[in-house]
């Protein structure tokens, strides 16, 4: 009964626009007080922050964020986009394809969707606008392309999932590769269909070898960084955490050699990385207060037992969970959704016999879709604000891509091998 009340308190606080982390902590503390009394409940706060943050494995989060921030500050991400456009921009719908291609490349460097969308909004969109691509197509490609960043490693969301569920982050990274590429393929098909419509994607500049080659010069360091990081991990030179540090250091050196770099941009990159990290770890320890409450109510084993005895097929439970997460995606950010649902949903899925790696990718894919759905679709917001195109136009343009996303999600659910094949081949 109190569990229902505490849950209602949580949702009331959330709807009242209290930050998700704080709402979870407050609702959790109210619940714990009811469970074990005031003095014992607040004793949990003694070590809460230290214990949740004093973990070496978390170091990868700020380092990967920093790497992306530095590459953007050094203008390297923008030039990657320009180079892709120079190579395939001349094809029918080519500038849109180039955006997807650049999104895949950026995804291998950037761990956050919104960061990726923001970059492409300022670098890929102007070219498409210049050649009179329909805003619905161009802004949609920028919005959806960004989501690739959280499936293709490195990924902050996958690290977050790995930390909360104690799943190998190295394996999660491998597991995300094929689903990420499959998603990109889904976007390509959608663009092909959309580009056939009159006025959607008018022809752009003709192909010019010299321009293409010249623009590619700036891609080499980026490739070097990607393959250097992969190489360091797979050859055993460095652990994944160390690879994050080496990647960020490489990005720092690369950025410092760029004309566009200056001291204030450098400080800004560090500042933004720390702020994003603080936001994420605050959700981590605040969700520990709430999940601590769930533990002591013993609701999780009760729900698992109820589900198991109900005789409902696991696939139906999975379906309900995914629909719920999609629904939360209408309102919430991906990290917040995971912090909120995993304490209950993860043990439930494991009890139903699902694979932790596979579920990690499926839930990531599901929350990724939430980045594109109204009313709150962070990628759409970022794209709209950076391009100046109306929010409604972007949301409307994204719709056909959402269909592709749902098809890909269904494929991932029905064919777990798409996710699990790569980790099985070279797994950690």
């Amino acid at each position, binding site marked *: 009964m109190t569990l229902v009340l505490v849950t209602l308190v949580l949702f009331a606080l959330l*709807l009242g*626009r209290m930050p998700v982390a704080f709402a979870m902590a407050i609702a959790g503390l109210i619940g714990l007080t009811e469970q074990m009394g005031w003095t014992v409940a607040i004793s949990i706060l003694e070590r809460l922050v230290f214990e949740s*943050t004093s973990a070496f494995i978390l170091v990868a989060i*700020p380092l990967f964020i920093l790497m992306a921030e530095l590459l953007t500050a050094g203008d390297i991400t923008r030039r990657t986009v320009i180079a892709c456009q120079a190579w395939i921009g001349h094809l029918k719908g080519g500038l849109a394809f180039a955006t997807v291609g650049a999104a895949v490349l950026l995804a291998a460097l950037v761990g956050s969707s919104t960061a990726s969308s923001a970059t492409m909004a300022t670098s890929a969109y102007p070219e498409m606008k210049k050649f009179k691509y329909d805003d619905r197509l161009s802004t949609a490609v920028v919005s959806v392309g960004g989501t690739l960043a959280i499936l293709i490693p490195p990924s902050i969301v996958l690290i977050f999932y790995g930390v909360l569920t104690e799943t190998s982050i190295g394996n999660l990274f491998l597991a995300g590769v094929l689903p990420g590429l499959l998603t990109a393929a889904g976007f390509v098909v959608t663009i092909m269909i959309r580009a056939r419509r009159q006025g959607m994607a008018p022809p752009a500049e003709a192909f010019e070898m010299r321009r293409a080659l010249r623009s590619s010069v700036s891609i080499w360091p980026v490739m070097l960084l990607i393959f250097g990081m992969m190489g360091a991990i797979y050859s055993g030179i460095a652990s994944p955490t160390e690879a994050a540090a080496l990647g960020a250091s490489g990005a720092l050196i690369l950025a410092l050699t760029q004309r566009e770099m200056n001291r204030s941009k450098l400080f800004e990159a560090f500042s933004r990385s720390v702020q*994003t990290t603080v936001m994420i770890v605050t959700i981590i320890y605040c969700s520990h207060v709430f999940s601590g409450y769930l533990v002591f109510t013993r609701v999780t084993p009760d729900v698992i037992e109820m589900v198991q005895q109900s005789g409902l097929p696991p696939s139906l439970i999975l379906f309900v969970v995914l629909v719920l997460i999609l629904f939360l995606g209408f309102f919430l950010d991906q990290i917040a959704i995971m912090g909120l649902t995993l304490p209950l949903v993860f043990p439930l899925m494991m009890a139903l016999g699902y694979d932790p790696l596979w579920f990690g990718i499926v839930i990531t894919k599901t929350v990724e879709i939430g980045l594109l759905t109204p009313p709150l679709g962070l990628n759409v917001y970022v794209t709209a604000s950076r391009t100046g195109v109306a929010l409604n136009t972007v949301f409307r343009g994204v719709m056909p891509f959402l269909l592709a996303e749902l098809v890909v999600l269904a494929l991932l659910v029905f064919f777990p091998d798409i996710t699990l094949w790569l980790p099985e081949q070279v797994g950690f």
Partner: protein
Amino acid sequence: MNNSALHRGLAVVEDALHALGCTALGAVLLLITVDALLRFVANETIEFQFEFTEMYLMPAMAALSLARVQRVRGHLAIEFVSLSWLGPFGAVLARLNHALPALFFALLTWQSGKYAWAAWVRDDIFMGTIDWPMYAAYLSIPVGTGVLTIRLIVDTLSGDREQEQQQAH
């Protein structure tokens, strides 16, 4: 002290702590990179790196910038309902959104502060590469959450500035 002096003073403290948090990130980057390279090149390690990163730098990075992140509205919230729909009730709710977390973080500051204090009084030492004093590892947490508490109280008193949200994104 008048209101804007208070705001300015608080912002100075927040920015100073944030600078420390950023320094911690710089230190993490440097230490891990050099450690990995040293091992590869010279079969040497920076022995204190792991313990220092885990016990000191990570908690500092997580806690010291808390108030600054709150100031720029960097903590995620559902941006679905507009408080202005709720009329005068919305204004109350906006204050509550800062008052309740202020209460929570005041408790957190008190409890984690007591914990750090106890470690200081007992002279708790973690025997690692060197003898690490634990109070210093715990200290950044009451400091960070303490300033956040003050920030939340200030925001409660001055009412919400809803339009300022999401600058961090």
